[in-house]
């Protein structure tokens, strides 16, 4: 966490700091520029200095050159030079004049310390200090350690065009001897040397007066790389090379560990170069304050900038950190340290959004389960009057009408599927789903419906506006409709309808009734079981109308064993299970006898009973076996009679023939089904279906389908399309047609058409 926070914090901090680069570069730039300017100014000052040094010194040199010419052209000089050996008294006057003219010349320029002429031929000197022997002159004025007198004499005898000889006198004075050999006399002998002496001090004074700073070093370099006015002994002659220095150049040189900028200028009159060495420190002195301020500014900039950068980065980061902390508290801290905070936040947010949508889906799913569960509870448990309405509102159930009835739809596998139990179990939920969907779809036109799964059943709470027979009939009709639709699937569904009860409180009761009704599914072998139908069976006296009808039907067709079977079953139930009282046994016996009579009457054989002494043979006090025997005998006797009578009638009159006849006429009606057929013959659909199967061996539904398929085959052979065919033969949709067709013929209608 810490490392991660630092990444972005540091990043921001650095980016703020980066702005500091601007003033830093700016101040570096300003400093460099001002250094350049100050150096430029120093250069200009040096240029001016050098030119004034040049003018100043050159003027003197020029003056010296002029003096040389004047002296050389002086007649006294010329005449004195040619005298050899010794000056006689006669020449003294010339020399006297000569000295006077030298004195006058010397006044002209106080830069000049001494002027003298050395006469080679006589070895004497004429100077501003008078005429004397060369030796005395040397000892008086030019004694030095470098040249002794003889060397000095040799020096004087040399031929000079223009020479400069530095002499360091014993008395500490340093002088420069500018020498020029006198004009060649007529005799072609260089017989004298004119010397003009300048004191190094006055030369330096001239130069130093021009210095704009004492730390400047200005000196004169001659063409032998000697420093002419070398009194500052810290400079070595060899350090600068005359040839290499050119005018107007600047270069840097290190002397005694100090860096100097060297500039120079060339004398116009002599092979001298005036060199100015400016210490770097002086150049930078002016720039120093600028540098100082720049540095202070820079440090201030960095210091304050860093502080503010950190402050800003921190204050900008704080909200982000708050957000991060918020996310972190959620606990989904991913430990990817490579990521920065934004990326991390994004991923966290994605996590959370995904989690939320997952949660919503689960909640939605759960709400469905909860709703189912609530409905289940409504069904299974008595309604809690206190909390019930509140819970009811939560689930938004549409059960607002006054009456409710519960219908259970147990899913019953078809015969062939019973063999493969596993697949059925797997399909069960699908079936339930199909049933629930279809039913709610059908029922929604008439009622409000809530549907829930309970075990292998689908439970539907149907909200009825009123408790009338019309409503019941409408419900029944709806359920028939459902069952008819389910026929096209490969399973069967049966409906158990509970009692119609008031309000929500009644749902539980209705459910219990429906459960009870469902118990009778196996027993009654019918598609729809109304609780009202079976509620009488509930009493200990068990002889439902259905069974009585079955008995009657059996009698009608003369099936004694069937009739006896029904009777025995009722007897067993009442005697063994219910163990009804004697009175009720009497009633039962009478009921049953009445049933037999009804049956015989219907066929028109009522007279049979008259021949049989029924009452006598039957007594309630008789044991069950005897009663059974009695009834067996009676039924047998009746049936024998009926069969006799029936054999007289044609078997054509059989019900199945009439049903077939009805179906053959009406197969094109898509509404034709078991229910319609039952209605037509005023027999319950379940019963007619059973009866038809019993008489023909085929199930009624299969018969209807086979008629339709046969007709369809005819039509298809005529080239009529599959869709048209399915409509013409009474299928509501071609899908069902195709499925049924293939089931019956083994091929699809399309395939059949193609074969034609």
């Amino acid at each position, binding site marked *: 966490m810490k490392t991660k926070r630092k990444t972005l914090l540091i990043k921001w901090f650095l980016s703020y700091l980066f702005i500091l680069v601007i003033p830093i570069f700016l101040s570096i730039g300003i400093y460099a520029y001002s250094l350049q300017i100050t150096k430029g100014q120093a250069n200009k000052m040096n240029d001016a200095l050098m030119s004034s040094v040049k003018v100043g010194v050159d003027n003197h040199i020029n003056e010296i050159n002029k003096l040389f010419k004047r002296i050389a052209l002086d007649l006294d000089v010329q005449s004195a030079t040619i005298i050899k050996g010794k000056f006689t*008294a006669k020449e*003294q006057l010339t*020399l006297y004049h000569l000295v006077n003219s030298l004195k006058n010349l010397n006044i002209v320029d106080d830069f000049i310390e001494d002027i003298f002429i050395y006469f080679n031929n006589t070895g004497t000197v004429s100077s501003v*200090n*008078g*005429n004397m022997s060369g030796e005395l002159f040397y000892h*008086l004025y030019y004694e030095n350690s470098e040249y002794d007198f003889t060397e000095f004499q040799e020096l004087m005898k040399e031929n000079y065009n223009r020479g400069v000889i530095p002499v360091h006198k014993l008395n500490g004075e340093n002088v420069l001897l500018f020498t020029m050999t006198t004009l060649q006399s007529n005799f072609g002998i260089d017989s004298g040397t004119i010397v003009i002496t300048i004191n190094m001090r006055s030369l330096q004074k001239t130069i130093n007066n021009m210095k704009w700073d004492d730390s400047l070093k200005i000196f004169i370099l001659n063409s032998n790389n000697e420093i002419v006015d070398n009194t500052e002994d810290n400079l070595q002659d060899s350090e600068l090379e005359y040839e290499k220095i050119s005018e107007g150049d600047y270069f840097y040189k290190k002397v005694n560990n100090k860096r100097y900028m060297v500039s120079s200028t060339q004398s116009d009159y002599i092979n001298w170069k005036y060199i100015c060495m400016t210490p770097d420190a002086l150049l930078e002195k002016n720039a120093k304050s600028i540098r100082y301020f720049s540095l202070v500014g820079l440090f201030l900039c960095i210091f304050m900038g860093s502080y503010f950068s950190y402050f800003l980065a921190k204050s900008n980061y704080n909200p982000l950190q708050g957000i991060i902390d918020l996310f972190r508290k959620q606990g989904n801290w991913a430990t990817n340290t490579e990521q920065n905070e934004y990326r991390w936040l994004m991923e966290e947010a994605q996590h959370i959004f995904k989690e939320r949508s997952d949660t919503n889906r689960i909640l939605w799913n759960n709400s469905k389960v909860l709703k189912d569960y609530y409905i289940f509870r409504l069904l299974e448990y008595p309604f809690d009057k206190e909390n019930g309405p509140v819970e009811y509102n939560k689930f938004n159930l549409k059960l607002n009408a006054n009456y409710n009835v519960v219908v259970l739809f147990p899913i019953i596998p078809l015969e062939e599927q019973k063999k493969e139990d596993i697949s059925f179990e797997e399909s069960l939920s699908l079936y339930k789903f199909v049933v629930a969907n279809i039913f709610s779809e059908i029922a929604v036109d008439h009622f409000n419906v809530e549907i829930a799964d309970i075990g292998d059943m689908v439970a539907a709470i149907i909200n009825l506006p009123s408790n009338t027979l019309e409503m019941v009939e409408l419900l029944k009709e709806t359920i028939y409709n459902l069952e008819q639709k389910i026929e096209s699937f490969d399973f069967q569904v049966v409906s158990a309808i509970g009692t119609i009860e008031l309000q929500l409180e009644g749902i539980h009761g209705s459910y219990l009734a429906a459960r009870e009704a469902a118990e009778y599914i196996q027993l009654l072998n019918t598609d729809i079981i109304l609780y009202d139908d079976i509620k009488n069976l509930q009493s200990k006296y068990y002889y439902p109308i259905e069974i009585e009808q079955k008995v009657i039907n059996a009698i009608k067709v003369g099936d004694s064993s069937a009739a006896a079977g029904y009777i025995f079953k009722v007897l067993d139930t009442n005697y063994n299970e219910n163990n009804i009282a004697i009175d009720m046994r009497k009633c039962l016996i009478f009921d049953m006898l009445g049933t037999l009579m009804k049956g015989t009457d219907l066929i028109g054989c009522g007279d049979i009973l008259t021949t049989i002494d029924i009452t006598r043979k039957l007594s309630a006090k008789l044991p069950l076996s005897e009663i059974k025997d009695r009834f067996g005998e009676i039924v047998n006797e009746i049936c024998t009679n009926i069969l006799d009578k029936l054999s007289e009638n044609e078997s054509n009159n059989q019900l199945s023939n009439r049903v077939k006849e009805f179906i053959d006429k009406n197969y094109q009606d898509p509404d034709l089904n078991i229910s319609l057929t039952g209605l037509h013959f005023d027999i319950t659909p379940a019963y007619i279906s059973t009866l038809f199967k019993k008489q023909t061996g085929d199930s009624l539904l299969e018969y209807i389908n086979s008629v339709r398929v046969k007709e369809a085959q005819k039509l298809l052979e005529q080239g009529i399309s599959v869709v048209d065919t399915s409509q013409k033969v009474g299928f509501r949709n071609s899908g069902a047609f195709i499925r049924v067709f293939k089931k019956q013929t083994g091929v699809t209608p399309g395939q059949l058409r193609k074969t034609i």
Partner: protein
Amino acid sequence: MFKKKLFAMVTTAALVMSLLAGCSNSSTGADTDSKDASNTSNPTEAAAPAAENTSTEFTYPMTSGKTLTYWTGLNANVSANYANLGDTPFAKAWMERTGVQIEFQHPPTGQDQEQFSLLLADGNLPDVIEYPWMTFPGGPEKAINDGVIISLNDVFEQYCPNLMAYLKANPEIDKMIKTDDGHYYVFPFIRGDEVLCNTIGLMVRQDWLQDLGLEVPTTIDEWHTVLTKFKEEKGATAPFSYEYTMGVLTEESPFTYAFGTSKNFYLNSDGTIHFGAVEDGYKQFLTTFANWYKEGLIDQDLATLALDQVSAKMTNGSAGASVGWAGSRMGVWIKAATATDPNYMLEAAPYPTLNKGDKPEFGQIENRYSNQGGVAITTSCEDIEAAARLLDYAYGEAGHMLFNFGIEGESYSIVGDYPTYTEQILNNPEGWPLAQSLSAYIRGNYNGPFVQDKRYLEQYYTIDSQKATNGIWGATNARAHKIPPITPTSDESQEFSSIMNEINTYRDEMTLKFIFGEESLDNFDDYVKNVESMGLARALEIENAALARYNAR
């Protein structure tokens, strides 16, 4: 440069002067006629203090806190250590004791003349100016008339009791420091004793004379002998060598004097002024000198000889005799040479005569008022009394001691009753030469507005030979031939100098030619004629007229 040295070297003589601490005269009274001033002087040896002090006595220091500007050239011995005279202990003491603040103004060294001219042209004058006023173009009288300086007669009368007392006691000096019209114009530099007036003379190698068994030469012939011996026996290449280029030494040439004449003007015994260079004596001198030159007895480089060369020759054995000052030449050379040659010694030779035993008629002598160091009050000065009191202080006893000996306890102490320079002065701890250490504390070793004390010179000469010079060189009749400080009129002096410039140049040129043999002495008469044709007569007329006016003072 040589001028300063000249002033620093002053001859000795007995000071016969008593200074009276005259206090005062503060009569603010009547403007006495300036011309009366000279009449008040009374030739008494000691001036009595003014008997009547009519008002409160004046005492130094003055309390007014006055400031005066004082223009003067700065002596080289001072400038060696001080940029301004005001920085010296001497000037500080002077200012402290008089209560006058002095702001000294100095011209650059060697430019006194030019700066003085500029000062006059500018017109913005300092309060007082120290200057050789007799050389003012047209003389001091003209300076007064031009409104440069003021006549001091009233000033002396009112504010200068000390000077007035001195002048009364020394009427001959009083005469010298006035103009022909009787105006005082300067607070003078006065040599307090005759011995201070004679400082130049001949000197000769005493050790050589001794070696050669010779006496100190007194006649021309003896000199010839001595010089010849020096040349031959001692190998002197320039037996007689002296600073020919130093004007005063050439002028005071003892060998010219020997022939009873001078190179320049002199006062003849007839009471008139003569020009010596055209007289027969001068021809004899030239003849002698030319011969000596030819014989090699005289330095062959004579014409251009200057101090350096002569000093070298006098100390290295090239020369054996010379002319110069006892202090700056004799003393210096002895000290320099004895360092290598302990036997080396110079001794003074008297001014030579033609005949042995004669008293020399001519010799070097200065007037006691020598036209140096005089201070005048300018017309710009507003506080004349302060200036006068300041300057008069030097002529009182306290001022006399300050100017000649400095500060008691520092630069001198009284030993017995003799003011003796302290060790600090004689052997300066900072190694300054005596002349410089003296110059910090006194003005006695050069000049200034005060009376010079001979006791200074007595201590300044340290070698016996030097001390002997007074008696040897002073034994002449020179004073009789010295022209007093006469002052030609403005017009006269212009005419005079234009004539004499020409004559002097020609004379000097010809003198050398005669000596070198370039010109035959047979042509001396032509030379004389040429000089006369240049207007010598007129020059003499001007000189004699001035002399007459002087005598008439």
